[in-house]
């Protein structure tokens, strides 16, 4: 009975498809756009392995005259500034992600509890910031002058700790996966509120926590705007993205700012394969994302769809 039903359904589905020429056209369009999306990255990888001579001769090209790993050798030679900002990026991403996930979960959990009277108030508190704000300049001045977010790691972490959008995603995750009876049962068994959240609720909403963690980790890894605003002199805390941005404007930023001996620094600055070097840095910044991408993609898709379906 069941078997014949599914057989019938399958036949029906096969009949009910678009015609072959139309499907070929769809493939063609989608392949074209997919290539448009990834080719720039492949191109930059090729440039990073192109010899400086070839760039001087024919410019950036998909088929360079000669290949070279010189750019990457210089990346390792130019040590400190670069590694420092690589380290900064990792530090900011790790600390920022842990803190922001904790804060988002702890803010979303009371909002999900129907028996929590002040729920409406806290809900409005975060929702209102989604539709109105103080604007760039007042926010900047308050952060810098009143909250002391200037020239330090805190300036790169604190302004992104909470996002009302993520609170909504987290709350929706809680609503769809944690039954109210479970909370009531835990309370009757004498479990304190914090105990309930971290020992009972958290294991259930692991996918939600993972989604928020990934979104936040990506936001911190890709962050350059906060550095542009709040870091003016202290180059020892700048993240990789901002270093890359500075190098766009002055090519020998790296050589000038590394703590090498005078003669050696000058020597390196002269022989710097500056063009392929920049592209090598772009590759180094994208590689962690590209490697993790196949794994985190489905989490992000799940999170975005759950969060957007019911805003």
């Amino acid at each position, binding site marked *: 009975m069941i078997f014949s039903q599914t057989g019938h359904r399958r036949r029906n589905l096969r009949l009910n498809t678009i015609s072959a020429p139309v499907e070929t056209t769809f493939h063609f369009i989608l392949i074209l756009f997919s290539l448009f*999306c990834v080719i720039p990255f492949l191109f930059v990888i090729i440039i990073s392995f192109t010899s400086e001579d070839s760039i001087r001769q024919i410019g*950036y090209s998909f088929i360079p005259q000669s290949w070279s790993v010189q750019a990457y050798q210089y990346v390792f030679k130019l040590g400190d500034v670069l590694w420092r900002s690589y380290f900064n990026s990792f530090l900011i991403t790790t600390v920022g992600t842990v803190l922001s996930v904790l804060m988002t979960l702890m803010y979303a959990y009371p909002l999900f509890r129907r028996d*929590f009277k002040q729920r409406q108030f806290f809900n409005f508190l975060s929702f209102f910031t989604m539709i109105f704000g*103080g*604007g760039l300049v007042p926010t900047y*001045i308050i952060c810098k002058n009143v909250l002391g977010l200037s020239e330090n790691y805190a300036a790169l972490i604190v302004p992104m700790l909470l996002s009302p959008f993520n609170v909504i995603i987290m709350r929706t995750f809680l609503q769809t996966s944690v039954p109210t009876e479970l909370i009531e049962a835990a309370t009757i068994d004498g479990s304190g509120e914090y105990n309930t959240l971290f020992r009972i609720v958290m294991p259930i909403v692991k996918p939600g926590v993972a989604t928020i963690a990934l979104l936040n980790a990506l936001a911190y890894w890709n962050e350059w705007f906060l550095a542009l605003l709040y870091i003016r002199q202290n180059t020892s805390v700048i993240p990789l993205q901002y270093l890359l941005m500075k190098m766009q404007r002055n090519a020998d930023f790296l050589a000038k700012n590394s703590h090498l001996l005078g003669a050696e620094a000058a020597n390196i600055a002269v022989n710097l394969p500056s063009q392929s070097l920049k592209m090598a840095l772009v590759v180094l910044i994208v590689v962690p994302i590209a490697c993790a991408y196949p794994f985190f993609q489905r989490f992000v898709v799940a999170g975005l769809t759950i969060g957007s*379906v019911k805003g």
Partner: protein
Amino acid sequence: MRAINPSLSRRPTSMVSSKRKKALLLCSMAAPGAIWLLLLRYLPMFGIVLAFKDYRAFKPNTFWNNIVKSEWLGFKNFDFLFKSPDTGRMIANTLLYNITFILLGLVIAVAFAIMLSELTNRFAAKTYQTLMFFPYFLSWVVASYFLLAFLDSTSGMVPNMQKLAGQEVIDWYQSPGYWPAILVGANLWKNIGYSTVLYLAAITGIDRTQYEAAAVDGATKWQQIRHVTLPNLRTMIIILFILNVGKIFNADFGLFYNVPLNSGSLYSTTQVIDTYVYRAYMNSGSIGMSSAAGLLQNVVGFACIIAANSIVRRFDPDSSLF
């Protein structure tokens, strides 16, 4: 594990106090987030008075003291703003870019999502989706290097090809006329994958029997798309549309600042409100003007989102945001 709450044994009086305790504990959980919101989102809202003041330093040089002692200017900052010839340009740019992004983004993403859902080869569909979503996870700094690889005036691929073909070489970063197309392309490149994924998820959620019933009734594939898929996507299209209309005065700073490499000769087509506020403050230090522009942006944006939402609520209460 923690010991069982002793108050449980003394029922009548403890019910009230345990309820209060529970509310207090839940409040304490929300406290870090609430404090963060108050300090980083609500406190700056008071900074809005900057738009009406002639902010300067006094003794002692603290922010609150300066604000209190600064002279009130009324709407003078706004007068200056509207007299400046750049203002109309940047508002027009912001609106035109955003309208283009919203319309193109909507049409292309819905089209892509429908195409992906109709492919019989699921592996290919999955692969296209993965490739299209990739740019969404990169920053505008990285994207600006990608573009530079093609357009750089000395080594970029396009100028070199033009040279080889004997054509006139275009200096892209000095020619504002090309940038509307480039910026629209860049925005689609980065964001289409995201909205495609959202629409595709909505399409996957549609009950398959609706299509089968339509097919039995003799509907062609195109009629099914028109009468089953699109009506089912309506709610999501409306929600994303309101969200975008509410942000119509906000531009993506990274796109307009980094992708044109902050090039001054491109301002006529790349200057938007967000970049103007940043440059007016950081480069010329005019707190009043930039606060005024920022406030204008927020108030109009607020009005837009409220208006969009109430229009939607009139026609389709289920799709409204609040």
